[in-house]
């Protein structure tokens, strides 16, 4: 990715609070139309990084450019829209008033912005006060606010936490449409399972360091996590299978084996040679949580690349 094509460039950014290194040497780019998920535990530095991109915090080291400008500059703020975790609005105002207000702050005609309430499914609630909204409705209003004026970069801090599964799917459908229109999307999340299928790329932050950056498929392959094969033996055959293939005996009749992804076909082939001893076989690929845990733990044990 070259400098001309990235809407957001983060290069060697470091932030220190007192004696805590909140971010260390974090670098990545986001291109127009790309959806990138930033994953990390609470305290991994996701919100701190967002605050740097918005210009609220000045990094002690490294450089960030938003649409070619410094974070917080007028041009950068015109290009970015932000949806904070736990979005809040003045409780006494209605949805329509909030959208009108933010449209004016963003120099957009409110008449162009108000249809966004329909897009997020709040057209019925537009005249009600935000204080009466549910958490999901506030989050939808936050998304509508973030979409005002067709931003080049959407910064969404844990946007789907607290949404029910249906709302979550609708949320990602809107994000997809916005990205197809050319906007870059950077969203943060706790869990890889949350963002699977919804983003093009993921970056994993752990204790302020970037420990992974790539597609889920590439990260899964690079992690080389073992595949688990569970064999249910026929009556009295468990010991024989265990002697031959090794592995772990469980539940009296089952044996659990694990193998490298590359050795999967070979192992299954050898198992089928003994099919008269085997009642059933289950193959479990490493889950997304396993992959996420692998990268997070690798940083904690100190061999981050």
């Amino acid at each position, binding site marked *: 990715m070259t400098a001309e094509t990235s809407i957001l460039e983060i290069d060697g950014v470091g932030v220190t609070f007192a004696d805590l290194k909140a971010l260390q040497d974090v670098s990545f780019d986001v291109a127009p139309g790309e959806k990138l998920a930033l994953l990390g535990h609470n305290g991994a530095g996701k919100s701190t990084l967002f605050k740097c991109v*918005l210009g609220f915090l000045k990094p002690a080291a490294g450089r960030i450019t938003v649409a070619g400008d410094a974070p917080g500059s007028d041009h950068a703020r015109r290009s970015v829209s932000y949806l*904070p975790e736990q979005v*809040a609005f003045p409780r006494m105002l209605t949805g329509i008033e909030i959208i009108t207000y933010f449209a*004016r*702050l963003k120099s957009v005609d409110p008449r162009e912005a108000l249809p966004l309430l329909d897009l997020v499914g709040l057209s019925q609630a537009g005249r009600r006060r935000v204080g009466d909204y549910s958490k999901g409705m506030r989050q939808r209003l936050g998304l509508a606010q973030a979409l005002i004026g067709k931003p080049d970069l959407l910064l969404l801090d844990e946007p789907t936490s607290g949404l029910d599964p249906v709302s979550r799917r609708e949320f990602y459908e809107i994000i997809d449409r916005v990205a197809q229109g050319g906007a870059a999307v950077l969203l943060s999340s706790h869990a890889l399972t949350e963002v699977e299928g919804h983003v093009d790329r993921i970056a994993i932050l752990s204790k302020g360091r970037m420990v992974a950056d790539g597609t889920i498929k590439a990260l899964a392959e690079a992690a080389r996590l073992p595949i688990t094969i569970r064999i249910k033996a026929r009556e009295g055959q468990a010991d024989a299978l265990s002697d031959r293939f090794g592995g772990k005996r469980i539940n009296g009749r089952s044996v659990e084996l694990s193998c490298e992804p590359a050795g999967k076909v070979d192992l299954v082939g050898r198992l089928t040679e003994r099919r008269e001893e085997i009642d059933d076989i289950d193959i479990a690929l490493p889950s997304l949580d396993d992959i996420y845990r692998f990268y997070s733990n690798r940083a904690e044990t100190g061999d981050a690349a």
Partner: protein
Amino acid sequence: MSPFTKIGAVASIEFRVALRNRWLILATGVMTLFSLALTFSGAGGLELKAGILTLAAASLATLSVYLIPLIALLISYDSIAGEVERGTMALVLATPISRGALLTGKALGLIAVLAIAIAASLTISSAAAIFAYGMDMSGLAAIVRLGLTGLLLGAVFVAIGLMISVASPRAGQAAAVAIGVWLVATVLYDLALLAGILADKDGAFTKALFPYFVTANPGDAFRIFNLAGLENAAPVSGLDGIANTLPFSANYALAGLFAWLVAALAAGYFQIRRLTP
């Protein structure tokens, strides 16, 4: 779209929030009650040859010094610290509005609340007095002057309240500081000046320093300017009696109020530029 549109948007939202939080109705109600009470309690002194509204203006000038700053601080202390605490400020600061425009808009919205409260209360009490006792043209001019300078006094304390709100990490702390500032500015400062006069044996303090000290306080400056405008038509007492013998024009008191407004807004602007939501 010009920056004025954004300032207008902030001012209008600030005004609506104050309206829905019942601040407007509360401020207007309290001020109307007090101005009615003072207007009609002053009516007993009508044999002093001063018109009813002139007497009312004198009493109101004394009371407004406490009431207007209190209401101004109450509506402004939460305006920024509260938004930071409730998490609504980060979204606003992420939009392309300058921090100066944000502060200006908030100040204008809150000053509009005060303007309505002051105008409504003075209109109601003056209309009632004119209806009961007849017209008093010079008194009416005094009431208009009182209203306009009262709004300036309110603007000064809105700016001070916003400055406190920007500088406070929590709304609760901003409230405590605002009450402290009100107590010092309206009560303790004058008490200290009185103590200075009483302890002043040869009159050096009273002659040389007191006029400047008293004019430097926004509340006292407001009162001096209004009472000087009444040209001794109404009875005055205490600090104001001494203040009537100022060695300079009372217009300097008005200039002092403007200086306070500019200084408080500048201090607020300096602080809000460094605000991290």
